């Protein structure tokens, strides 16, 4: 059994769950910036309040899995993305405390701004990191040897904005599913703007990445069919989303948003695999000893199903449309 591949699969699972789950939380936060009505903002935040903490925990899961199973990659990637990582953590901090603080004060608007700006910055920084990974990380002697400012380049910035709009799509989909008619209408309008922008930016990002990174060109040469299928699928899903934003059943946009992310992430995985530090260190070069990987994997095999079960239970307790006065009443 290839332990490193298994650990990487678990890492990928955690990252995917994070992007999708906290993705719609962050999306709701981003859309908060464009919602002028206080009652609607309360309603939007209420729709994610009971479950956001569990969603955010997946990023910690991904981070420590990287530390446990691929410590060399962890100690290259974090210094490489030092600035966006710290800005993301601070932004997630603002977003997180705003959940608690906004209900404690009459100046709720201030914390709503903190909430929204925190979500925007966190989303953008995560996109910067994704773009930074795809443009490649400079490594010498298994240490980061580039500049912390390497992320201030076109590809990471395109990727940052793409993810920002991508999360807005997920957030709008979630709101269509969970909120009252007036917020649903707001969500439809947001979808009509965000979905085509995502498709456009994603296309530009792909072409740009293809041009600057030879490793991507060679991946494209070997997985050409699969990659072009994924790009085509991405365009179709984004088009459907835009077209059906208003008319569809409440659950459809959220489902299509998830599809968009699954397709995008699969494409990314196909390009990056088998590197864990693109394009210089493979999974196997960065792996920790087998005893450490075994420990994590055995733990994960037993505990993850339980975690997923009670997470589903928590969602189920708070199922249905968000009550007008929040969940506590």
């Amino acid at each position, binding site marked *: 059994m290839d332990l490193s591949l298994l650990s990487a699969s678990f890492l990928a699972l955690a990252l995917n769950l994070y992007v999708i789950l906290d993705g719609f939380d962050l999306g709701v936060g981003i859309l908060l910036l464009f919602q002028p009505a206080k009652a609607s903002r309360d309603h939007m935040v209420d729709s994610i*309040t*009971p*479950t956001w*903490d*569990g969603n*955010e*925990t997946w990023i*910690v*899961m991904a*981070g*420590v*899995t990287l*530390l*446990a*199973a691929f*410590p*060399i990659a*962890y*100690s*290259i*990637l*974090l*210094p490489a993305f*030092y*600035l966006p*990582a*710290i*800005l993301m*953590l*601070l932004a*997630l*901090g603002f*977003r*997180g*405390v705003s959940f*608690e*603080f906004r209900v*404690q*004060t009459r100046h709720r608007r201030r914390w709503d701004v903190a909430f929204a700006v925190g979500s925007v910055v966190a989303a953008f920084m995560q996109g910067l990191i994704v773009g930074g990974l795809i443009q490649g990380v400079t490594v010498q002697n*298994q*240490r*980061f040897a580039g500049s*912390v400012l390497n992320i201030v380049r076109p590809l990471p910035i395109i990727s940052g904005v793409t993810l920002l709009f991508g999360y807005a799509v997920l957030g709008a989909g979630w709101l269509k599913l969970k909120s009252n008619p007036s917020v649903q209408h707001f969500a439809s309008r947001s979808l009509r703007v965000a979905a085509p922008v995502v498709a456009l930016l994603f296309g530009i990002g792909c072409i740009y990445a293809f041009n600057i990174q030879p490793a991507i060109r060679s991946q494209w040469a070997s997985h050409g069919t699969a990659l072009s299928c994924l790009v085509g699928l991405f365009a179709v899903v984004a088009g459907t989303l835009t077209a059906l934003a208003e008319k569809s059943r409440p659950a459809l946009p959220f489902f299509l948003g998830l599809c968009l992310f699954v397709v995008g992430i699969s494409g990314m995985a196909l390009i990056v695999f088998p590197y864990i530090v693109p394009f210089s260190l493979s999974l196997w070069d960065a792996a*920790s000893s087998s*005893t*450490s990987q075994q*420990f*994590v994997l055995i*733990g*994960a095999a037993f505990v*993850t199903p339980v*975690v997923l079960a*009670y*997470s589903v239970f*928590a969602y189920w*307790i*708070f199922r249905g449309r968000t009550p007008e006065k*929040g*969940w*506590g009443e």
Partner: protein
Amino acid sequence: MTLDPSILARSQFAFTVSFHIIFPTMSIGLASFLAVIEGLWLKTKDSLYLQIYKFWLSIFAMSFGIGVVTGIVLSFEFGLGFARFATIAGPAIGPMIALEVLTAFFLEAGFLGIMLFGLHRVGPKLHLFATCMVAVGTLISASWILSANSWMQTPAGVAIHDGHLTVLNWRDVIVNPSWPYRLPHMLTAAYLTASFMVAGVGAWYLLRGKHQSFARRTVSLGTAFATVLIAVQVFIGDLVYGTMLKHQPSKMQAAEGFWEKQSQSPATYYWFIIPDQTNQRNRFEVGIPYLGSIWLTHSLDGRVEGLTNTPRDRQPIMGVVFYAFRIMYGLALLMFTMAVVSLWLRFRERLFSARWFLWMLVFMTPSGIIATLAGWYVAETGRQPWVIYGILRTVDAISPVPAQALLSTLIAFVSVYAVFISAFLIFTLRIVRRGPAAAPPHAEASGSLKNAFRPHVLDNPARVVNRRIA
């Protein structure tokens, strides 16, 4: 001026981890307190307990929230500031923290929503279960992280070949020599913290003549818990002291303020020193004669080992360790005195009326937090110059990040965390000033587990009450 990246990286970690530990200390203590209170409510049906629960729940929610977001920072900071540490220690502490996330963080997060917002949707029994799961989650989390930190203090179960660490035996790594003592030490500290917070707020209401029944119940509970806990803590503290003296003698040598290889007999217990690390002596010292021998060697004339037993390049900085230890120990003695006095006042039925004692309780409200922080400073600064004791020096663990980047993020952390703590203090004081809300009439629901699966019934509390009567 040239900036030293290692000083900056260490300052940043010290600041963020010190800030973080304040909040888990509160939430570990409060989570268990809330579980006990809700259990008492269900058992006695006394709605005063529900009032206490709801009041402390809102403060718990804020401290938990800040604990979560400042904790996430730490799980990435091992790599952001200390890449070399992450490479070497990752195979040992990474899996422990991964298991912490799996077994504790998700448990807390999954049931926190139900604990905070679910009472009317799941009914009291399942709600108590959610509270207990959150409390258990905090304990499991503390257990793993203390294991990881204790492994850095007393590493065991690993082998190192040319810079790569391999775990030989997970049991030895997890149950390393200091963990069995340091875990109960930290948990008791968290419980003491919550006890003094609860008693302090109640004492304030008694002094103000407000919310009498709430105040009496919480002062009584808080002082009762504190009395039992401080007795336990003094005992556990002694065990921790013994373990560290055996495994990390330099830490305890620095903590007691002696330099010479053997102190004179009988040894003095120092309360104030001005250490001179360069000349390896104290410039000034004040203490109580004999007490050093009695406390540290449990005899009248025992001698105590000084810091010069440790080679100079392996010594921690005495001043920091000494004063951190004095603050923790001084507060423990004060807590012990308060516990004895509270027993006497309780016996004389003056616990709620002795104003001088109530004032002392008010001043002791943050005592647990300060003592816990001081204790962590003893643990962490006393381990220096090592980050993994005897294996990796802190200066060799730093990331290849330029000093300017480290300095700007340090400033960013200080500014953002200043906003967090100010907001937390303002809102907490406001909640305290507002006082507990009257317990709502539909609070005492049926407690049936069945209602968990039929939230629509619970959306209308009147129907629940009617069903019960029928």
